[in-house]
C-alpha cells in the first residue's frame, strides 16, 4: 500500500504491480506464488475486496494480472461519498499544516525581526507550488504516460473535469480526480516549504521563489512519481512508504542541508543569541502540525476505512511517544525537559511514523517514535554543533534524520513479528534493503537537484540578502514591515 494513482493508470497499475511482485519474487528467491500472497495481504486491507479478486490473487502472478485487469474493466468503479468526504477533509488538513501550522512552527523559532519573512516565504512557495502543480506538476508525477522516473500528459489538467475519477488502493473504489489532485497538491506545497527551514533569516525572497520553481520541477515531481505512481521506481521496488516519508521528509531534509551549506551560516551564528522569538507560536504550530498530519497520514489511505484508522492511531501514539521521549532524554543528559524539546519530539515522531502510518501496529509505532526522537535529539544537540553548518531550524536534523529512521524502521515494524500488518512474506532484511535503496536514491537525487536549484537561484537573484538587511531583519529589509507594533 504505497501510493495512489489515477484512473487512467489503473491498467498500468495492474501490470506494474505484477512487475513489482515479480521483482520482489526475485529478490526473495521465491516465485509467483510468493508474490501472489503478498498481493493477497495487500488486498486484505481492502475490506470491500470481492472474494473473486482474493481468489485470483492466490493464483500465479501471471494470471493475477489478466484476471484483475479484466475484473477492473468489468466492475464499474464507484465513488463512495464517505471516501470523498474524508479525502476533502484530509486535503485541507494538509493546508492547515502549511499555513498557519508550519508558518508558526518555523516562524516562532526565528528571531522577531524575521518572523514575517519566514511566514511569507512559506506561504508564497506553497502558493507557487499549487499553481505549478496544476500546470505541469501533476502531469510529471501522475500523468498518463511515463517511465520509472517521471510521467507526462494531462498538462494543465487537460481532460479532467468534475466527473473524472482517480483510483484508490481498492479495486472498484475511486475518488473524484479533482480531490486526488488537490490532495497531492498540498503534499508538493508543504514539502518545498519544509526545505526553507534551513535557509530562513538570510535567503532572499526572490531566491526562494526561483529555488522553489526549479526544485519542484527537478526534485519533487520526479521523486513523487518514483514513490507514488504505478510504474515509479520505488513503487516497483516494493518500498514501503505509506504517506510520503521519502518524498516529503527525506527529500526536504536532505535538500535543506545542501541548501544551507551552499547559502552559508547566518551572521553571528554560534556567537550571538539566536533564541526563538516566540515558543508560544512554535507551540501553536506544533499542535496544528499534529492535527493536520492526520490528513497527511490517514488521508494517504485514500479511503475512510480501517487502514486509515490504523494510520490514525499510529499517528497518535508514535507522536506521543516521541514527544515524551525527547524530554526524557534531555533529563537523562542532565538538562531540563524543555518545551521546545517536547515540540521537537512531536515533529520527529510525526516524521518517523509517516512511512509507517498504515504499515505498523500501534506498539511498533510507539517504539519507532521513541527511537526517532532519541536519534534526532543526538543529531541536533550533539552532532550538528560539531559540524558547524547552520541548518537554522533543523529541517535536516528532524525531517531528514527522522525521515531516514522512519523509512528504515518501517521495514521492521511492518513485520508481523513486531505487531505489524505485514504478512512476513518479505523478510525484514530484504525489506530493509529495499527501503535503504529508496532512501539512498532519494538522498542522491535531492542533493544533486538542490545544488542545481540553488545555483540557478544564485545566478538569477544573488541568493542572499545584504549583511545590513540580515542584521536589521528580513521583515523590514525584504518586506518593509514589522511583525509586531505593540
Amino acid at each position, binding site marked *: 500500500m504505497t501510493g495512489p494513482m489515477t484512473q487512467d493508470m489503473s491498467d498500468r497499475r495492474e501490470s506494474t504491480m505484477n512487475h513489482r511482485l515479480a521483482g520482489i519474487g526475485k529478490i526473495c528467491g521465491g516465485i509467483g506464488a510468493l508474490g501472489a500472497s503478498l498481493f493477497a495481504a495487500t488486498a486484505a486491507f481492502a475490506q470491500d475486496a470481492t472474494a473473486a479478486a482474493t481468489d485470483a490473487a492466490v493464483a500465479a502472478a501471471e494470471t493475477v494480472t489478466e484476471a484483475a485487469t479484466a475484473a477492473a474493466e468489468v466492475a464499474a468503479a464507484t465513488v463512495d461519498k464517505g471516501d470523498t468526504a474524508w479525502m476533502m477533509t484530509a486535503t485541507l488538513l494538509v493546508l492547515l499544516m502549511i499555513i498557519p501550522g508550519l508558518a508558526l512552527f518555523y516562524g516562532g523559532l526565528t528571531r522577531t525581526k524575521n518572523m514575517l519573512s519566514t511566514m511569507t516565504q512559506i506561504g508564497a512557495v506553497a502558493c507557487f507550488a499549487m499553481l505549478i502543480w496544476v500546470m505541469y506538476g501533476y502531469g510529471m508525477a501522475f500523468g498518463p504516460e511515463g517511465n520509472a522516473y517521471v510521467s507526462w500528459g494531462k498538462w494543465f489538467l487537460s481532460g479532467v473535469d468534475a466527473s473524472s475519477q482517480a483510483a484508490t488502493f481498492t479495486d472498484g473504489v475511486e475518488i473524484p480526480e479533482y480531490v486526488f489532485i488537490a490532495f497531492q497538491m498540498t503534499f508538493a506545497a508543504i514539502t518545498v516549504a519544509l526545505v526553507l527551514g534551513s535557509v530562513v533569516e538570510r535567503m532572499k525572497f526572490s531566491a526562494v521563489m526561483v529555488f522553489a520553481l526549479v526544485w519542484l520541477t527537478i526534485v519533487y515531481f520526479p521523486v513523487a512519481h518514483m514513490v507514488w505512481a504505478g510504474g515509479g521506481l520505488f513503487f516497483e521496488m516494493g518500498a514501503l512508504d505509506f504517506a510520503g516519508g521519502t518524498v516529503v521528509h527525506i527529500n526536504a531534509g536532505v535538500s535543506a542541508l545542501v541548501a544551507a551549506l551552499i547559502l552559508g551560516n547566518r551572521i553571528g551564528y554560534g556567537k550571538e*543569541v539566536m*533564541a*526563538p522569538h516566540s515558543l508560544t507560536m512554535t507551540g501553536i504550530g506544533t499542535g496544528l502540525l499534529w492535527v493536520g498530519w492526520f490528513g497527511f497520514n490517514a488521508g494517504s489511505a485514500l479511503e475512510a476505512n480501517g487502514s486509515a484508522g490504523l494510520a490514525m492511531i499510529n499517528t497518535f501514539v508514535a507522536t506521543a511517544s516521541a514527544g515524551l521521549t525527547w524530554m526524557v532524554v534531555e533529563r537523562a543528559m542532565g538538562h531540563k525537559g524543555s518545551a*521546545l*524539546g517536547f515540540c521537537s519530539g512531536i515533529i520527529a515522531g510525526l516524521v518517523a511514523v509517516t512511512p509507517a502510518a498504515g504499515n505498523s501496529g500501534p506498539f511498533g509505532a510507539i517504539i519507532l517514535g521513541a527511537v526517532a526522537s532519541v536519534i534526532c535529539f543526538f543529531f*541536533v*544537540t550533539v552532532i550538528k554543533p560539531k559540524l558547524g553548518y547552520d541548518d537554522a531550524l533543523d529541517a535536516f536534523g528532524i525531517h531528514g534524520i527522522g525521515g531516514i529512521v522512519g523509512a528504515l524502521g518501517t521495514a521492521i515494524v511492518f513485520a508481523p513479528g513486531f505487531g505489524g500488518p505485514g504478512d512476513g512474506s518479505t523478510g525484514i532484511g530484504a525489506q530493509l534493503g529495499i527501503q535503504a535503496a529508496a532512501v539512498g536514491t532519494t538522498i542522491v537525487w535531492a542533493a544533486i537537484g538542490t545544488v542545481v536549484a540553488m545555483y540557478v537561484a544564485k545566478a538569477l537573484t544573488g541568493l542572499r540578502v545584504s549583511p545590513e538587511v540580515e542584521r536589521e531583519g528580513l521583515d523590514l529589509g525584504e518586506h518593509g514591515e514589522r511583525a509586531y507594533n505593540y
Partner: protein
Amino acid sequence: MKFIIAIIKPFKLDEVREALGAIGVAGMTVSEVKGFGRQKGQTEIYRGAEYSTNMLPKVKIEVAASDSLTPLIIETIQQVASTEAIGDGKIFVLDLSEAVRIRTGEAGDTAL
C-alpha cells in the same frame, strides 16, 4: 531636588510602590529593564544552543523628589526591596536641576 533611580527585583514593585506612597511620594515612573551584575542568570537551552546571558529582568523606578524627602525615600526603598539575596539591585541619586509639570507649567518642588 533629586532624581532617584532604583533598580529592584520585579516582584518587589508593588511593595515598594505602596511604601513610597505611604511616606508621601505622589508619583513615579517605572520601566522594565534587564540587569547585569553579580547575580547569575538561568541557563537557557534551545535545541542544544546554550545561552547564559546573565541578563536578568529587573524593574527600574524613577522618582523625582525634594531634597528633604530624598533620604527617607532611599531608606524606604532599601529596606522594602531587600531580600538579602544577591541581585536585589541599587539605588542611584542624581541632582535634579529643574522639574516642570506639563499640565500647568508649574516648576520646582511643587511640580513633583
